[in-house]
């Protein structure tokens, strides 16, 4: 899985490219955890290039959200397509993450 990482202001944006499934999901979790730790939780996951998510991907999102919550923060997703959003709704994970339409909106939420 390919990851694009960039910093917007003081916010780290990580953009996985491809479906969030199986081992790729674990790889994403590792990268996201490292990124969150490096920038004190100022992390946005740009899901605009994630076509779909399987059970492992959902598990990773739940784990990341839980870890962020313990630090008083929350996982911020942006640009997720309708398929991903629907899966999050059906699995009741949507309430555990913040979702924004685009990266800028997500970054602005840290202000």
């Amino acid at each position: 899985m390919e990851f694009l990482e960039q910093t917007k202001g003081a916010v780290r944006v990580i953009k996985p490219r491809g479906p969030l499934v199986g081992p790729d999901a674990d790889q994403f979790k590792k990268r996201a955890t490292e990124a969150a730790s490096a920038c004190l939780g100022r992390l946005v996951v740009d899901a605009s290039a994630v076509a779909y998510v399987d059970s492992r991907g959902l598990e990773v999102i739940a784990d990341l959200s839980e870890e962020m919550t313990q630090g008083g923060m929350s996982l911020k997703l942006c640009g997720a397509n309708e398929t991903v959003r629907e899966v999050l709704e059906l699995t009741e994970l949507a309430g555990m993450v913040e979702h924004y339409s685009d990266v800028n909106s997500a970054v602005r939420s840290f202000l």
Partner: protein
Amino acid sequence: MVASTGLAVAAILLMAIAGGGAWTILSQRQLARDELSARVESAGRLLVASVEPLLGAGNESAVKMLLLNATKEGEFRRCRLVGEDGELVADGAPPKVAVRTKGSGPARAEPIPPGELSDPRYINASFEVVTRSEKMKLELSREVVYPRWAGWEAQTGLGAAGAAGFIALLLVYRRLKRRLRGVGAIGEALRALQRGESSAAALEVSGRFGPEAAAWNQLISEREQLRKQVAGERAKETLGTRGDVKADLAYACDALWQGMVMVDDRLMVRYANGAAAIFLRAKREAMVGASIEEFVKDPALREAIRGVASGTVRHRTTIEMKRAEAEGGGVLRCNVRPVRKEDTTASVVVMIEDVTQQRVADEARNSFVAQATHELRTPLTNIRLYVEQAIEVGDSDPAMRAKCLDVINSESRRLERIVGDMLSVSEIEAGSFKLRASDVRLETLFEDLRVDFAATAKEKGIELRFELPPKLPPMRGDRDKITLALHNLVGNALKYTPEGGSVTVKVEADPSSVVVEVIDTGIGISAEETELIFEKFYRAKDKRVDGITGTGLGLALAREVVRLHGGDISVRSELNKGSTFTMTIPTMAEAA
């Protein structure tokens, strides 16, 4: 007390044994003496009854034989017949056997020694013997011989038995002494319990008093545990609501995105929420109970915490702490304030807030204001100068006046564009950036673009090419906004391409979308900045960019416009070789 009671009982028992023994001996002795007295009395009466007829018959030698035999048989130490005048008539004692004989002088009876009659060792008896002519006295005396068991041997035996009993009693007492003391101690504890004493320490007795004491202590221990359990349950019931509130507060603190650390007056961490652990790069479990100085390296913050903890500082202190780049960078704003409450040991609360993004935003805003001021001042200065020159030349130099008006016109348009960009940015920020959809003729749009930039390209010595397909599909969208996006892309390409370079606008289209590539041979963009350049107010760090005017809004606006049409802009670039911006936009997309 129990010990003294035991000793008294033992003494009484001993005295009873001794008294009983003595009474038995004395009573047996008296019994023996009485029996002997009776025998002496009986023997005396028998002798009197026998002697009187013999004396009456004058047979004194028979009397003598009778007394001799009686002395022998009765074990008398004295058995004699004495006349009224003290004359010894007959004596049964062998050496003194005598009888009154005619012609011989009368024998005198030896008087009984004084004190013998009252001596308890002897039994003395005297009987009257009456004949026709005279009265005589029969004196009997016998030594008292006690039975063996009533003598000193018996006394010694009884004493030995008493002593043995006493020793046995002592041994038993010694063995029971500790346990008796334990029982006594338990009795004392029971009395204390009755008086209202409830402390387990006061009610417990020493364990060396034996099993009864151990059992008592266990009973007291169980009672104490039960009491504590009951008290705990009552306390739990009483404090249940308060505990719930505390738990809720802990959860609430964990939900804070600000870090919160409570520190006592010894600088020990009493509480830290999750955000604090992240900001201080520590584990919560490791923080609680440890010194705050292990986690805070900033000298100013340390000093502030020390000041509040020691009580020398009583007001809130705010410190901004910059983190090293190696630790992820950023700015943490720390509020140190005192907490003085009687029911808590914490004396300092440190609130930590991550203000990095705010600082970055502030810097970007300041940079934008500075840049925008510069951008606005340049055309305004040009306009003012050329207006003054036009006024000065008046009608005397029509060519110069026309040139001045041309420059004023150009600078006015530039000014309008800058202000327009700023307005668009504020609309985007406010969420009110809307498209006004209409039919767009792309051929006309690109032709206008060519005209607009032809002069600039020529002026910079840059070849500007347009590669368009023979026929472009009709498109629906906001013409002005699409023109703005294309203007920004082509304008940037010309701006950052050195003299002698080229800029190519290549258009490909199908019925559903149009792809526009703006290819330049300019200075290029570093890989790290290819995404950053689409951020508002961002300008590349390349030194060559510093001398070129710009607000850093063009690409951000262009991408925003294209995304509002359902498309996107991407970039491929290589430093010093050039860049290619690709704009993909659907032809029939419903404008946002």
